[in-house]
């Protein structure tokens, strides 16, 4: 490492002002824009009123913003030390939720805390990314070639995925596994192992289908043929497509969406908020929102690329991947492209705990960015 670089790292490691300067204000702006879209959408979902959704939404976002910026200023090396304790804490919560959690819609997913309902699986995804990043931080390219080295992190993924499946929450389990897989890939797992794992997953799928709960199977079968049960499990998908399609190219105008406002569209303030927006603003509006979401994903990915230590890279990539999967699953779901999974649209859907978790994860991402150039030893002598 050159002297110049060393000097730079020392200089940027400390000092509040310089840290603030290093925050990616572009990303902050994009997030504010997304939350603004959320406000407008929830205002419409509330029947043209800030109550009961929009005003609370913007309050939570304000709180989330402060949380994000606070986390951004925390030294990434300190955060890295918290990785495994966070993982252990999240697993404990998952076990707790199975033991005594609140049952909603046929699944045990929720824990009541601070007046809000929290899904430990949300926390689990971030903690998992932290733990994996911490593990692979130390791994050289050669070490990544050692299969034995990959077993502990693989188990670290399998344990929470199994627990989440048991809740049961298929959608989140798949997202968690995918996020984990993305971190593995970025850490440098050999391609042939990736291929092997993919093939193995493909083989296990049909077996797994037999162990799914009835409502999960219903989701898959109605996804394959929504009209088979138009008033039952297929109702949501059909109504969502009707609302989208009736919006057309230019939409029906703000607050004019008939399907959403006449309550044909179920859960319009949470899972189907994208549908409501696309009904009112048309294909143009829907595409614009997709563009905004894509920009946020790209910003997060670029933060991963610009980071100069492995922990930060992997953490940022995992968080970006998590955000992307949220968006993809939600939007694909409302268009009937994948089975309905109860995944909200981050920062737009109504829901307190999800918003806080997303903002906290962006705080970690921001911390990676602020501390992108710090000297972060991987515990081995590099020279």
């Amino acid at each position: 490492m050159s002297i110049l670089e060393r000097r730079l790292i020392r200089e940027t490691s400390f000092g509040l002002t310089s840290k603030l300067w290093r925050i990616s204000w572009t990303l902050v702006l994009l997030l504010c824009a997304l939350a603004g879209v959320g406000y407008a959408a929830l205002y419409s979902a509330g029947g043209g009123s800030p109550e009961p959704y929009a005003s609370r939404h913007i309050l939570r976002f304000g709180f989330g913003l402060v949380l994000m910026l606070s986390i951004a200023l925390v030294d990434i090396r300190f955060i890295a030390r918290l990785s495994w304790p966070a993982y252990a804490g999240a697993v404990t919560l998952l076990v707790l939720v199975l033991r005594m959690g609140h049952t909603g819609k046929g699944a045990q997913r929720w824990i009541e805390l601070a007046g809000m309902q929290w899904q430990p699986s949300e926390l689990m995804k971030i903690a998992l990314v932290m733990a994996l990043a911490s593990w692979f931080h130390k791994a050289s390219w050669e070490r990544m070639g050692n299969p034995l080295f990959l077993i502990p992190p693989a188990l670290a993924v399998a344990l929470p995925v199994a627990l989440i499946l048991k809740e049961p929450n298929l959608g989140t389990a798949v997202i968690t596994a995918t996020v984990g897989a993305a971190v593995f890939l970025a850490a440098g797992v050999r391609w042939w192992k990736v291929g092997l794992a993919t093939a193995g997953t493909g083989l296990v799928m049909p077996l797994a289908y037999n162990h799914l709960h009835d409502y999960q199977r219903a989701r898959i079968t109605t996804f394959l043929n929504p009209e088979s049960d138009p008033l039952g499990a297929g109702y949501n998908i059909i109504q969502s497509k009707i609302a989208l399609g009736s919006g057309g190219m230019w939409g029906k105008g703000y607050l004019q969406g008939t399907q959403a406002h006449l309550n044909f569209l179920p859960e319009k303030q949470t899972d189907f908020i994208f549908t409501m927006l696309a009904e009112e603003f048309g294909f143009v509006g829907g595409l614009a929102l997709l563009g905004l979401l894509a920009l946020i994903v790209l910003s997060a990915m670029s933060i991963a690329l610009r980071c100069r230590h492995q922990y930060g890279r992997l953490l940022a990539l995992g968080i970006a991947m998590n955000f992307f999967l949220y968006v993809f699953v939600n939007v694909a779901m409302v268009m009937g492209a994948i089975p309905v999974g109860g995944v909200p649209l981050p920062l737009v859907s109504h829901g307190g705990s999800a918003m806080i978790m997303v903002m906290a994860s962006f705080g970690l991402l921001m911390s990676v960015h602020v501390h992108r150039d710090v000297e972060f030893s991987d515990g081995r002598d590099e020279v």
Partner: protein
Amino acid sequence: MKREAKRTGVFTRRALLLAAGQMGALGLLGTKLYQVQVVEGARYATLAETNRVSTRLIAAPRGRLLDRFGETVAGNRSNWRALLVAEQTADVGGTLDNFSRIVPLADHERARIDREVRRHRRFIPVVVRDFLTWEDMARIEVNAPDLPGILVDVGTTRLYPLGSTLAHVVGYVAPPNEDDVAEDPMLALPGLRIGRAGVEKYHDLALRGRAGAVQFEVNAVGRLIREMDRQEGSQGQDIALTIDAGLQKSVLERLGEESASAVVLDCRNGEVLAMATNPSFDPSVFNSGVSQAQWIEWTSNRRAPLINKAAAGLYAPGSTYKMVVALAGLEAGAISQGERLNCPGYLDLGDTRFHCWNKGGHGMLDLRGALKNSCDVFFYEVARRTGIDRLATMSNRFGLGVRLDIELPGARKGLVPTRGWRLAQGKAWNLGDTVVHGIGQGFLQLTPLSLAVMAARLATGRAVQPHLTRTVGGVLQKGARPEDWPQLGLPERDLRAVREGMWQVVNEPGGTAPVARLTIPGVQMAGKTGSTQVRRVSREQRERGFKSENLPWEFRPHALFVAFAPYDAPRYALSVVVEHGNAGAATAGPVARDIMTNVLTRDPVGRREPPARVAEGATPGPAAAPPGRDGPR
């Protein structure tokens, strides 16, 4: 450092790959969005509209039925009812308890209300009690603060001012069944009724009218948001019947306690002026449902009050059939006008002896005399010479054994046998069968209505059809004028001979029914008696001096009478059948006389039929085909 560079390079490549994958996936979503929103947009827009718009029907008021002078025989009455809207009360049970204190509710009513409240969405009104009296309604209104969720509204119910007097003609209405609702969705509306019998059934479509519709914007649970469009329906048409309600009442009164029926026709055009059946029933009972006890009472009654005996009761015509036999014989040349036959009191055919009602015999008789004395042997012989198939053909020309154009769905056509009919049963036709048909016995089964039609056609020589509809929606129906009906095509000479025989029955000394002679000066009636055994009289009984009056009621012969008047300018024709009335002359004759007297003396001055437009396309002159009853709807 080199190792670190390798690791960084791998990360960068793979991260870029993932980013590209993410962007590709989002791009795919954009494409899919384009497909759903733009390519298939029109289809989904239509679906959205059907989602949002709900059409509700508004019932059209049912048309009234009037008699020929405009008196209402079936109308509509307001039905005040109490409804419960569950969502407007916090405590459904409490509200109903309070309601019971004002208008007591039976346990089964409470159970029905609870069931309906559970079954419907909470904003849909459920009927608590129908047919509220004025006092009940006032008490409910006064106690409104204690009855949250209760509202009083008005529907309609069918009202029959004449009650049982005209029940068999008017028929009745009842709640529609599922098949009816499938045909006309308006019938699904609460409180709607459909014609189930009589004219109510025959003219149901015209009376029903067309439902109006209101389009509402509704939300996903069906609650109304706002009214978008309203189309007024058309009210059901008023229909004026040919019936004279006043005459109908007097005819029914004259039938008294007998199980009997009588039909009075205007013999010039076939209008049914009265069609009375005794005993009768109250048609409004069907409105709200018939109780089990009432139903058992009706169906077990030997006098069958639910059956319209005038149009659906089947009787052997007996001697009233002899005019048709005579005309068939004259047309076939089996007998001539002046030909005289001997009646020794019996006719032997092979080893079977057919008796005349007069054991001593009538001696030599011509056709008029045979009718006057109702000689059986004369008509045995005429029938034997004419043959059953010619008898059947002539019967059909007089409206016997054929379907008549009467607006009563329950009307029966009766039976006039032919050789072919018997063969179809796998039996041979015997000459003995033909002989007994000469006096209107055997297989013959005719309705009183068709006998009245026969009398009318005998009187006018025109093929009039009986009908009950005068105007539909104020438009006069075809068939009201005599010229609307074609001639029978029989020689006037033959008809006159038969009419003279009928005149002698009533007006000449020695006729079989002098009791039926009118007392109105200058007006005479022609008629014919008939008595028909319901049980064969055995030789033994005959020899022991058989008296039908001593038989139990249900084995006594039926008494019949057909007539028309005035004799020289026929205006009215009638038939009377008194079940188990023993002898036509003694029982049915006086009834026929009194009814005809009443018909003729009812002063038509000042009782004009209401003006009616003539249907479009109705041209004067005889109608080629029998006119249909269907007016413009």
